[in-house]
């Protein structure tokens, strides 16, 4: 008697339910559980702990195979990051956190208030700039976002800033004119600094359901996303939709938001993320 509980049908159903509850998706959850069950039977490792670990390994594997990386930054140029995503996911707040994170490493950061549309968007970013020690390049409400971006990159080059972080307006991926606006911003950036924006981070709310995959597809197409940030993981949602995004689009999660303050921010750890899902 090994003292290891054998996995039961009920256990497998419960594990599958945990995956679905984490927004992994019904079909993906079924596939993973089926594959793990078969492998466990073949290896004769059918105790619950091993099966649970095997599911975690599957998920970690998917996340680690997402190998998209930022673009190369030419020597002496600022690294340009652009945050994009649908409305309300936490882009502006995350820029405050990124600024804190880089400043703590002794880097200089310049911010670009390219959300010229939403009420008080510039004021919100300016407050974060003050809080974390970064200047904010901005223009009047209604200005062309690409014009603000141009100003910011020119300023960053002149000041030899280490980083430029660009805030963009929230936008639904179904609005083609708004997605084209992003494409135009990318082209503008690339003209001024080779390879810019070097990192385009899609900011996803951890509570997002299956629509998150469609969001990622559309933003990847319009803005050439290089990675994801998952916010609001301090809630009860688990952000499992990033598994499908990793698998289909090869996009890795780079950072995670865990609250509303400047230091509620960590680099992504696949194993830890997955353990919270499989529980």
């Amino acid at each position, binding site marked *: 008697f090994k003292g290891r509980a054998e996995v039961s049908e009920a256990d497998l159903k419960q594990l599958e*339910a945990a995956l*679905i*509850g*984490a*927004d992994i*998706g*019904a*079909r993906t959850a079924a596939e993973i559980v089926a594959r793990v069950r078969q492998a466990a039977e073949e290896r004769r490792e059918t105790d619950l702990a091993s099966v649970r670990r095997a599911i975690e390994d599957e998920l970690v594997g998917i996340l680690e195979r997402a190998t998209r990386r930022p673009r190369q930054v030419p020597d002496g140029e600022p690294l340009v990051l652009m945050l994009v995503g*649908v*409305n*309300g*996911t*936490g882009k502006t707040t995350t820029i405050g956190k990124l600024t804190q994170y880089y400043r703590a490493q002794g880097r200089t950061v310049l911010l670009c208030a390219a959300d010229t*549309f*939403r*009420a*008080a968007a510039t*004021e*919100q970013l*300016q*407050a*974060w700039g003050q*809080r974390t020690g970064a200047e904010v390049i901005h223009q009047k409400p209604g200005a062309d976002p690409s014009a603000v971006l141009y100003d910011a990159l020119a300023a960053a080059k002149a000041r030899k800033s280490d980083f430029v972080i660009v805030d963009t307006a929230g936008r*639904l*991926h*179904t*609005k083609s004119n708004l997605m084209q606006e992003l494409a135009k911003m990318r082209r503008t950036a690339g003209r001024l600094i080779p390879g810019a924006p070097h990192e385009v981070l899609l900011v996803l*709310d*951890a*509570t*997002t*359901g*299956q*629509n*998150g995959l*469609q969001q990622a597809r559309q933003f990847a197409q319009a803005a050439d996303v290089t990675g994801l940030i998952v916010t*609001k993981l*301090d*809630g*009860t*949602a*688990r952000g499992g*939709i990033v598994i499908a995004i990793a698998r289909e689009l090869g996009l890795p999660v780079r950072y995670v938001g865990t609250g*509303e303050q400047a230091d509620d921010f960590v680099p992504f750890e696949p194993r830890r993320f997955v353990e919270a899902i499989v529980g």
Partner: protein
Amino acid sequence: TLTDRLQRVFKSLRGEARLTEANMAETLEEIRLALLEADVAQSIVEAVVADIRVKALGQEVMAALSPAEQVIKILRDELLDVLGGGEAARVNVKSSAPPAVVLMAGLQGSGKTTTSAKLAAWLKKRGHRPMLVSVDVYRPAAREQLALLAEQVPAPLFAGAELVAQAGAALGTAVVLDLAKAARRDAVRSGCDVLIVDTAGRLHIDEPLMAEMRQLKQALAPGEILFVADAMVGQDAVHSAAEFHRQLSFTGVVLTKLDGDTRGGAALSIRRVTGQPIKFIGTSERLDGLEVFHPDRIVGRILG
């Protein structure tokens, strides 16, 4: 579409003329997957599928419909039944002592501030004189955001700048409650019959902030508490909605950002787990982007 998938299920069962135990299993599995993919919560999907199984089994074949179409009809009726009637879009702005108070609640980023302004525009159109106030003293530039939107409606805003300035660095529940009560007094003074209170986004598991919400409710005795939720929320919808309802007994739901292409299964989850009506949907970022909720439209989206 789900209809196509069900047609294929029935075809593969070689010309079945009626709904039986045998052809039901595969059909119900397709329905289960479709509802989960549309972000309906697991527990709700289970209940719906169980109901459909009972209603569908042994049904007399309807002359005009194929078995697949018949099941779809049963499913449609079931979803419409869960989502409930159209008595939904009345905002309770009657009050024995004016102003009537509408309190906005919800998770971070769901659309409360924007919806507060949209609601003011909505009520103005219907002959009311709404005043807006933001008691979000936490999020940078939150009160500025509502102030700008109030100008656009246009509707009077209680800014409470002195109250916030006096609080200094001690921005918390005390000044939140002071602001809310001062706004109500100002609404009476200004002849406004409705006060819309925008609140900070908060997690349902954040005890101090949920306690603040309960205290706001107690202080204001709102006739309407609207839970503002993002239509693209997935399985978590049941957890946040249930907890907000448990603590606040909210009276209605606004589902925002339905101008996207999310299937909107959260509508079913939230309605089913709280029993509260979805009163409005948000359909754009503009002030006129607030519409009455129609169950058949969201059912159409969920069934995709």
